[in-house]
């Protein structure tokens, strides 16, 4: 009778290796599928995703004033800019901006950072931006900094009167959230 030993595998290494690899790959795929619910549960839940929109009455915001509205847990700045502030923002040469994109969710993503693409359409005194520094998420201080807009106190990012990054570590202009006018003096954010 032929003795069966552990070294018998050596007669047909290809078949045994294939079985090992296939079993291992199957187990790895299974582990991956099992791991996914453990990872995915940390993502925003249905209630957070369902967060609605916010309506704001602009009538109470006087010229030059910035108000801060909470939308999706973050502040949104609404600034009724003065003529001088608008002119100052328009004068800026686009070539000297660190971020040349409009960052405006209401426009195509290739729009440039001209003031017209940042301000409300047809109502250039209104500037609506998410009040979260694009560096590390602090809330910038209004009417501060060297460029007449915002200054982030955390790491020293300066934004101009169109909410565009001018100096400091922030990589992007303040984001313009999706919003629309409902009548002359009311907007709906989100």
């Amino acid at each position, binding site marked *: 009778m032929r003795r069966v030993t552990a070294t018998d595998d050596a007669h047909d290494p290809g078949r045994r290796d294939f079985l090992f690899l296939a079993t291992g790959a199957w187990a790895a795929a299974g582990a991956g599928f099992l791991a996914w619910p453990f990872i995915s549960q940390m993502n925003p839940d249905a209630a957070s995703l369902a967060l609605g929109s916010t309506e704001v009455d602009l009538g109470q915001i006087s010229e030059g004033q910035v108000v801060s509205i909470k939308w999706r*847990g973050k*502040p949104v700045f609404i600034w009724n800019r003065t003529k001088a502030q608008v002119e100052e923002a328009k004068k800026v040469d686009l070539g000297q901006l660190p971020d040349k994109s409009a960052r405006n969710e209401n426009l195509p993503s290739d729009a440039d950072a001209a003031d017209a693409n940042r301000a409300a359409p047809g109502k250039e005194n209104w500037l609506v931006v998410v009040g979260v520094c694009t560096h590390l998420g602090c809330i910038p201080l209004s009417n501060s900094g060297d460029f007449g807009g915002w200054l982030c106190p955390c790491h020293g990012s300066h934004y101009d009167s169109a909410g565009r990054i001018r100096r*400091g570590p922030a990589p992007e202009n303040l984001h313009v959230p999706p919003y629309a006018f409902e009548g002359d003096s009311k907007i709906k954010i989100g």
Partner: protein
Amino acid sequence: MQGHSTYRPTGGVAKWLEDRLPIVGLVHSSAVAYPVPRNLNYLWTFGGILTFMLVAQILTGVVLVMHYVPDATKAFESVEKIMRDVNYGWLLRYLHANGASMFFIAVYIHIFRGMYYGSYKAPREVLWILGVIIFLLMMATAFMGYVLPWGQMSFWGATVITNLFSAIPLVGPSIVTWLWGGFSVDDATLKHFFSLHYLLPFVIAGVVGLHIWALHHVGQNNPTGVEVKDIRRDTVPFTPYATLKDGVALVVFMIFFAYFVFYIPNYLGHADNYIKANPLVTPAHIVPEWYFLPFYAILRAIPSKLGGVVMMFGAIAVLFFLPWLDRSKVRSANYRPLYKQFFWVFVAVAVLLGWLGSKPPEGIYVTLSRLATAYYFLHFLVILPLLGTFEKTKPLPASIGDSVLGSSYGGAHATAAAAPETRG
């Protein structure tokens, strides 16, 4: 390593147990008979102090959880309840909060001791790397713990640190949303951090086990950096020598700890953290806890988001490569005249970075931060490799025993004639 004596169970029960689970023998060989170099100074007591701090943090943490509520609307109030209503709650919380700082004081001394005496060099590379992993885990744990009181500094610290990950190209923003469990730091984030803050100390305990295992496998370094050659002449048994020395140092350390807990419990904290988290207002001057300040200064020194984040993590990552960056054959700075000076310059630069991290990011502070950051990396990437080639080191003692006792005492090559009257 072979010990001074081996455990021999006496009595029937001890023998019966040892045959089935040799746990008493394990403790005996690693904490009683284990040979330690006889020339260890008090800087070698910080391993024991750190073990004590880990246990202290776990114990105080477990009882604080009996009263703390991980909910964005109740967390802040529950911490105030611990401070005012819970029996000895103030003591337990101050022990835990200051304990984190004490933990970091001890770990920084422990790390700098390793750097001074070249404790990371072969065969201790894995021991050192495990230590750096523990350091990273400690930072993650301390950061998440600081978020739990849900004060203004908790909230904005959490915002800034989690946003670091948004610098990662492509997947960064998705990772941040995943960490947050929402679109900003909120209740879901607090719950994530609470769960992980409870978990990570036990992971640390596991890696500490590996760290001690590796230590006991390769043996301790010592102030001369010379390996143990003769167990009987170069070492003493762990108990009573190291046990008692560690005990003395631990008591002194606990007095220091108690001074903070009982006299200046909020000295290392921030007043802003006694204001409840407000997602619409960032405090005018946000700074992390003191033990993160050098890395925070490096983050702010770089005028680019991704660059700053890469350099900050790089400042820790470079520690993993230290065993291969320092090319000198001599371990201890006591025998390396140039490295000794560069070591102290490096310590000064690290402290300077810490101070700069607490200053606002403007003017001279930014310039100094950049210079200090450049030097930090220069030390590891240029100075250390070059010193290995160009430094002229001092002669090493022939053995640990020689360095402590003089070559005339019981050495194989003793010059007995030098002191014949002592030989009795």
